[in-house]
């Protein structure tokens, strides 16, 4: 039993008042769970953000997901199907060995090899048909077809040392093979608890602000906020909306926010003639699927009051969306505006389409995946019901929801999409391109939306290496898809971080929490 002596208590209180972090140590409270230190094992956001401290990439993404040089100093397309990367000289791995082209070759060989990977990074390397080492600091990659996204894809995975080309995942977890070129060395990985990192003095990018970084997994959001308030951690991510106002007012905490690349949207079954969850208001099946009619889809989009959802449900922590990514991201169209709320117009369109008294539909939503997912769905349902589309919400845990929606069991679904590439071809290809497993198109197109105009423009864009021309094609594809209401965009989430007073964080659109972005602002 611990006896609490007054003196000890006083001392403890004082330490807290003075801010518990000693010197240049940083503790991060992470909302997600990290499954491995092997950067090629599981392609999931939380793993990637932690391994980014330890490993460099050929190309990096800045806070707004613009490409910046990392281990490759520059890159260019030599011809339509060849990309050349000039590697940085004088880069050291944590074990003191030099980085050069052979490490890139070893990495490209390991990525598709990793056994038991539940989500492989091979999606970033599959396009490469041949790798040519020109000299130790120049490497060329060939593709079968023009591949403009090569530099983006090279920012998707970490470069390891060639000594560990065939090291199993366990060796990375134990730290033996977790030797990268990143600013921090792995000291200890305690599964389910924390990751301890230490400054790497030989980092090519210069001195880091923190001697030691501890990344703690606190998945319960109330506990995460409490850990920040008590000063146990200096920064937390995924600030719950309910606590946002309070943390903003608290003199001991600072909140930093940025619009994210995550779109929350509604997908509709616009493909099948009969869809399982649409009926007449009397419960009888309809002659045909109303969601196939663009007027009905348009009416649904018009019936939704997005500013109200942003204000009331999201408590201001979102931005109403009119397309697939917020303005400023590559490929977004300036012509696409947020759909104006217009209930009368919606009713009129519905009548025009032959549904003057509406119909009944069930909106399926996860209740543990996106910020306020179920509440957003409830709000949408009320708005649709007001224009005559009687909407019932069925909320499910994501573990049940995702497999069932992939089996096309639903008619009307709420989903979210974060663009890992930071440009618009990612949501276009995954959500709106015609489903085609051979081409890898539309893997997350759960309404099986199909529009030849979108497919054509997208396919052309994905073959166009010239940036300006590609941007134009992507804008065309976006406009074709959104004007045809291939999906109903609702809002973009805002990513929030909260730090203790005296610390600041450069907020990132990709939701990553990196020690490199945390700065000391006072003392």
């Amino acid at each position: 039993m611990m006896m609490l002596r007054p003196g000890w208590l006083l001392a403890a209180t004082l330490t807290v008042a003075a801010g518990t972090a000693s010197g240049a140590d940083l503790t991060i409270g992470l909302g997600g769970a990290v499954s491995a230190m092997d950067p090629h094992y599981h392609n999931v956001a939380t793993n990637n953000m932690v391994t980014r401290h330890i490993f460099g990439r050929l190309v990096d993404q800045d806070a707004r997901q613009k490409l910046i040089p990392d281990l490759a100093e520059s890159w260019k397309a030599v011809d339509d199907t060849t990309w050349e990367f000039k590697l940085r000289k004088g880069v050291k791995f944590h074990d003191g060995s030099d980085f050069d082209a052979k490490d890139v070759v070893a990495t490209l060989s390991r990525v598709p090899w990793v056994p038991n990977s539940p989500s492989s990074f091979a999606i970033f390397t599959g396009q490469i048909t041949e790798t040519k080492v020109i000299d130790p600091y120049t490497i060329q990659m060939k593709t079968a077809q023009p591949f403009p996204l090569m530099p983006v894809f090279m920012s998707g995975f970490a470069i390891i040392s060639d000594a560990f080309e065939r090291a199993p995942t366990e060796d990375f977890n134990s730290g033996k093979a977790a030797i990268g070129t990143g600013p921090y060395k792995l000291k200890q990985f305690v599964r389910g608890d924390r990751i301890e990192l230490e400054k790497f003095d030989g980092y090519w990018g210069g001195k880091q602000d923190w001697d030691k970084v501890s990344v703690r997994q606190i998945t319960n959001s109330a506990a995460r906020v409490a850990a920040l308030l008590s000063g146990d951690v200096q920064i937390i991510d995924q600030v719950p909306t309910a606590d946002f106002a309070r943390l903003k007012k608290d003199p001991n905490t600072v909140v930093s926010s940025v619009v994210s690349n995550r779109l929350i949207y509604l997908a509709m079954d616009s493909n099948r003639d009969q869809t399982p969850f649409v009926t007449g208001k009397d419960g009888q099946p309809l002659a045909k699927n109303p969601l196939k009619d663009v007027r009905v889809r348009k009416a649904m989009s018009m019936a939704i009051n997005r500013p109200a959802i942003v204000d009331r449900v999201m408590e201001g922590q979102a931005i109403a969306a009119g397309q697939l990514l917020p303005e400023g991201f590559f490929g977004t169209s300036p012509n696409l505006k947020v759909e104006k709320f217009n209930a009368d117009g919606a009713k009129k369109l519905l009548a025009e389409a032959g549904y003057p008294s509406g119909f009944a539909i069930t909106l399926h939503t996860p209740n543990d995946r996106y910020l306020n997912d179920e509440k957003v769905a409830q709000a949408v349902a009320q708005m649709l019901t007001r224009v005559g589309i009687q909407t019932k919400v069925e909320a499910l845990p994501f573990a049940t929801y995702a497999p069932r929606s992939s089996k096309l069991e639903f008619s009307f679904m709420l989903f979210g999409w974060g663009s890992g590439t930071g440009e618009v071809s990612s949501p276009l290809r995954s959500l709106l391109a015609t489903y085609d497993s051979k081409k890898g198109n539309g893997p997350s197109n759960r309404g099986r939306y199909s529009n030849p105009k979108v497919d054509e423009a997208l396919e052309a864009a994905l073959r166009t290496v010239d940036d300006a021309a590609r941007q134009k094609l992507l804008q065309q594809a976006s406009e074709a898809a959104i004007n045809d209401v291939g999906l109903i965009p609702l809002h973009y989430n805002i990513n929030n971080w909260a730090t203790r007073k005296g610390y600041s964080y450069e907020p990132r659109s990709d939701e990553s929490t990196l020690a490199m972005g945390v700065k000391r602002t006072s003392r």
Partner: protein
Amino acid sequence: MTVFLIRRLMQSVVVLFVMSLIVFVGVYAIGNPIDILISPEADQMERERAIRALGLDLPLWEQYAVFLQRAVLGDLGRSFAFSTPALQLIVERMPATLELAIAAMGISIAIGIPLGMWAGFRPESVAGRAIMAGSILGFSLPTFWVGLMLIMVFAVHLGWLPSTGRGETVEVFGIRLSILTRDGIAHMILPAFNLALFKMALVIRLTRAGMRENLLMDYVKFARAKGLSTGRVIFVHVMKNIMIPVVTILGLELGSVIAFAVVTETIFAWPGMGKLIIDSINQLDRPVIVAYLLVTVSMFIIINLVVDILYSVLDPRVRLKEMKS
């Protein structure tokens, strides 16, 4: 005795078998873990590859057959999420849960028994009534709420104790323990107390009931008549008698504390088995769920077996051969 043991062992194997079958089919029915594990950016081919890599492409009965085949050899499969043997994951997390459970039990005994004795000794006093009222709160307040309140008061407002996590650990024979460091103990106080609260209420009630019952017994009157001091009567004679039910119940409760500390571990981000199972359920990490439940069932089987054997040792009237289950 031998016959009893053999019969028991065979029953246990059947229980484990049925259990694994139910969990296996149950988790399969919920959905496909690949949808949760895979990167949303993955295309259809990558999806197919991942499904094959995790063995999810086989029909259910075949997956189960593979599982059984390996389980007989002591391999309960690899976690989908961690790619680590499921059993190893559980064993890795076990020390954290064990030390939390033992600390919680210690707290509930150390606080519960004296309070219960006082409440039983002076049931009509203000203190006695207050203790009983407190024990009702201990029973009825939800653990997660109490946990959050403890964090708010002791970590956020007073700043005496750390809010979450396990703190500094020391490795002893390859097992990470936090009970040996000052920092570790500071981290453990709140979750252990939170976990102890319910058990404490239970101990108070059991002790009080035993106390009241025993005080009316003839042996107490006889001891008093003999001229023994109140202290001796209570702490030597009565104490012995009230401990029997308390120990029995606590033994069984220890099993449930170890297996189901889920809520406390989640709130305090305590990296124990409870947190592992809840994370695994969220990810539909079937090998871990199945292995965890098999371990839990085995634990309860062993505890029950030990209790039965102890009964026969303590009470000669109980004959193991006649016991059915």
